């Protein structure tokens, strides 16, 4: 696979088909952890880490266990198990190595398990027929796209905190609307990679 192809995968996953803004994957943590820039960045990094590893692991599981044994229908179960274990592992590591980060991410670290972007990217990798390297690249790029979207969002939400949003729209509704407008702005990247 040449550089060009990899670049296409990256630009596509980060900008054009941004996993949150265009594909709706990972919306729960996106809405939940984007209130502050620091935590958003932490979450982004955690997701990046988990997604990169998960892409690799699930590819291996798919191609070296499920396919040879003809057990493709077990894909969902197997993948989610791998991801759940990975997330728990990351949680343990962060709790030990950076208590402040752990405190900041709080309940959202376990939520990476239910971050559908992680499982989503694994499934998409398989469905798109990516090889090992493209899978890894796609997973990482998707997570970078997630991080980009979430830090932009966090910046805006910190500003929204200071504004006079009508009470009914405070919190999630205004965040959703902002995400929509952000998604609209990302339309500009449409067609950049053919």
């Amino acid at each position, binding site marked *: 696979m040449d550089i060009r192809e990899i670049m296409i995968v990256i630009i596509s996953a980060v900008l054009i088909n941004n996993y949150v803004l265009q594909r709706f994957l990972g919306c729960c943590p996106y809405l939940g952890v984007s209130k502050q820039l620091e935590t958003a960045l932490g979450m982004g990094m955690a997701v990046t880490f988990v997604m990169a590893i998960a892409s690799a692991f699930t590819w291996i599981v798919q191609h070296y266990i*499920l396919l040879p*044994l003809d057990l493709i229908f*077990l894909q969902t179960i197997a993948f989610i198990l791998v991801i759940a274990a990975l997330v728990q*592992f990351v949680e*343990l*590591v962060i709790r030990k190595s950076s208590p402040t980060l752990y405190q900041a991410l709080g309940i959202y670290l376990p939520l990476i398990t239910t971050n559908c972007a992680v499982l989503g990217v694994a499934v998409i990798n398989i469905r798109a027929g990516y090889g090992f390297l493209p899978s890894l690249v796609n997973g990482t790029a998707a997570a970078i796209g997630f991080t980009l979207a979430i830090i932009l969002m966090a910046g805006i939400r910190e500003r929204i905190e200071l504004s006079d949003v009508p009470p009914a729209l405070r919190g999630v509704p205004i965040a959703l609307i902002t995400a929509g407008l952000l998604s609209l702005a990302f339309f500009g990247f449409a067609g950049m990679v053919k």
Partner: protein
Amino acid sequence: MSSNIILSVAVLAALGFILGAGLAYAARAFAITRDPRIDAVLAELPGANCGACGYPGCSGYAEALVIGSALITGCPVSRKEASERIADIIGQEERMNINSDKLISVVKCCGNNNTSARIFNYSGLEDCRAATRFYDGPKKCRHGCLGMGTCISVCPFNAITMSPLKLPVIDRDRCAGCGLCVDACPRQVMVMMPERSGIQVLCNSGEAAKAARQVCSKSCIKCHKCANICPAEAIFFDNGPAKINFDLCTNCGLCVQECPVKCIYETNRG
């Protein structure tokens, strides 16, 4: 078909085993300990994170309690029963000190915009602390409430509202007795009083009668009429406005009737 099922189960079991083993190892390698009592104590605390205890939120206080660096009585919001349960959890033998009376805050001033004179026209931030920095605030009375709502802004329980005549009104049901408004008030016009008591002298001015009358028509003039009529002898004077000893007060309300300037109120009647 059956071989397929067996294979599935086997694969999943193997996967589960490998991942489980890995996690078990990780759990041990990266283990950290946290005293489970902290969470237990935290569960008993009010969870308003008001900070009245002086710690960063309830969790900080819970940790301090378990370590032993804080007193159970440190949380002014906790009710007696909760405090006793916390004492059970951390095994602290301090129940004697647990406050049995719930305290609530009260504004010791009834000088509203109509009765209390102004000395200048303040035009600045709507904040009592900011206003106090300008010549002790725009009211002629230097002890009374400025009515700009700093107490409202610090109240974590939304228990205070502003009356149309610019005096804060405390919702006795919502007030948790954290005392943050008392700390925040630059005039020391907010005080804590037992919730069960109803009578309070709503004047904070220690000025002599004449000076006090000049600045506010509702100011306590130290006439001692209330003290004289009080059957429980609960009202006394010590270089200031009339004060009530809540241990003696029977809420009979005679002083309220007697006060010539009407600055004694039955606060629990709104």
